[in-house]
Each structure stands twice: as C-alpha cells, then as structure tokens.
C-alpha cells in the first residue's frame, strides 16, 4: 500500500519552456516507481508537457513571464499501478466549458490540441478553472495491461 505523502513529488517552477525537459524527466522517474510500462510513461511525459505548455502559453501575460513571477506547480502522486498528475497555475484562468466540446470531438481545433492530447494519452482528466482564478489540470495514467 503506497503512502500518499511519501509518494508525492511537488515541483514549483517558472512558466518557462526551458524547464519542460526537466519536468518530463522528474515525472517519468516517478511514474517508473508506480510500475507503469515504458509506453505508459511516454504517454505521461507527453501529457505533462502539454499541461505545462498550456500554463506557459495561456496563463500569464508576457511581463509576468519575463519577470519570473509567472509560476506553475506540478504535483505527482504515485499510487499502486497508477500515477496522478496535477499541473496548476495562478494565472488568468478560463471557463472550461469553452474547451469541453472541443475535447469531445474527433478533430480538435488546433487551439485545444494540447488538452485533447492529454485527454487521449491518459485514463482520466479534468480541468478546474475560472476566469481570474487560475487553472488546475488533473490527469491519471494507469498501468496498461
């Protein structure tokens, strides 16, 4: 039985694409501890990259990014045969209703491609966001059989 506190990894970092590689490596390492397969881990790396891209591209204005005040938090919770990832920011937020229909469609609009990819690469995904209240993207990848 895994211990939720013992098996939680939290990274806080600037909203800067130069850290994407480091985040992917950290999440891959944690996912390996959760017993996921190589392909599961590759899927999770893409999903976490897309969630971070979303923060970097949309959460803050350019000044906040330049000054380093634009930050994001990645939490990885390693369970038994599954890994839950939360990517949060305290940026401008949005109404998730605007992307839900795109996420359900077969051919997503290019603007929502990153979120669509997360949904397809993982077993569960949800978005908590509201204008002015930041965004939290949560997804779970389970070990494939």
């Amino acid at each position: 039985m895994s211990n939720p506190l013992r098996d939680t990894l939290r990274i806080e970092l600037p909203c800067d694409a130069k850290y994407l590689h480091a985040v992917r490596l950290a999440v891959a390492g944690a996912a390996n501890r959760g017993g996921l397969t190589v392909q599961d881990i590759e899927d999770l790396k893409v999903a976490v990259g897309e969630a971070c891209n979303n923060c970097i591209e949309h959460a803050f204005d350019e000044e906040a990014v330049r000054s380093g005040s634009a930050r994001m938090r990645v939490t990885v919770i390693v369970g038994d045969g599954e890994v839950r990832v939360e990517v949060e920011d305290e940026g401008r937020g949005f109404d998730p209703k605007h992307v839900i229909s795109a996420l359900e469609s077969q051919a997503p609009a290019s603007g929502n491609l990153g979120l669509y990819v997360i949904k397809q690469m993982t077993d569960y995904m949800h978005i908590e966001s509201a204008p002015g209240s930041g965004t939290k993207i949560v997804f779970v990848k389970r070990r494939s059989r």
Partner: protein
Amino acid sequence: MSIHTRLVDDWLVVVKLRGELDAYLAPEVRERVEEVLGSGASWLLMDLTEVEYIDSVGLGIIVGAAKRANERGGDLSVACSRVNVLRVFEISGTKDLLNVLPTIAEARAVLEAARARSRASESPGGGDA
C-alpha cells in the same frame, strides 16, 4: 535538438531533426523550416527517425509547413518510426494528412509519386514529357 537540411536531386529538401521537439526547441526548428520554405522549396521530407519526443507545438510547425508546401503545389511527408512519437501523430489525427511513414525511403516515395502526378497534370498532353 540538432537540425540539418539538404537538397536532394534538385527538388526535395530533407530536414533531419535529432532530439526532442518540444515547445522550448520549437522556435529554432520553426526558423529553419521558414528558411527552407522562404528559399522556394515546395517538397519537404521531415526526417524524424531520430526524434525522441514531440508535442503539439512541434506538431504545429510540421502542419504549418505542410500547408505552405501544399499552397505552392508541393507536399510534405514525415519519416518516423518511434512508437511514442508516432502515437502523437495518430492521436492528433495528423498521420495521414502529413504522410507519416516509417522509413525515409517510403516518405520519399510518396512525394515522388505526388510530384509525378503534379507534373503529369501540368503538361499539355497529360504525360510526363
């Protein structure tokens, strides 16, 4: 990420990428692809056989390059054999649109066929003369 471009047989530009094509490295790739397109190229083969990772930003560059090539009567294909990279093309629904094939030879062949069709339709008699 390393990027090498070469002109093959005076018509095909092969863009070979190595490493990880993510949002951090995408601007460099976009710039090089823009240079290639700006030089008048209309047939592009993106060699991703040594690319280990791609995200939607990287994918967007390739989709944009394909549109530009199509607009000028050419086309683009992608050579990609890594399962995890291929999966991003499949999930995003761009695998067929971008002519994603497992080897460079197959990716080149699809462009050769498209170019032959294009030339046949342009010639007055409909032949290849």
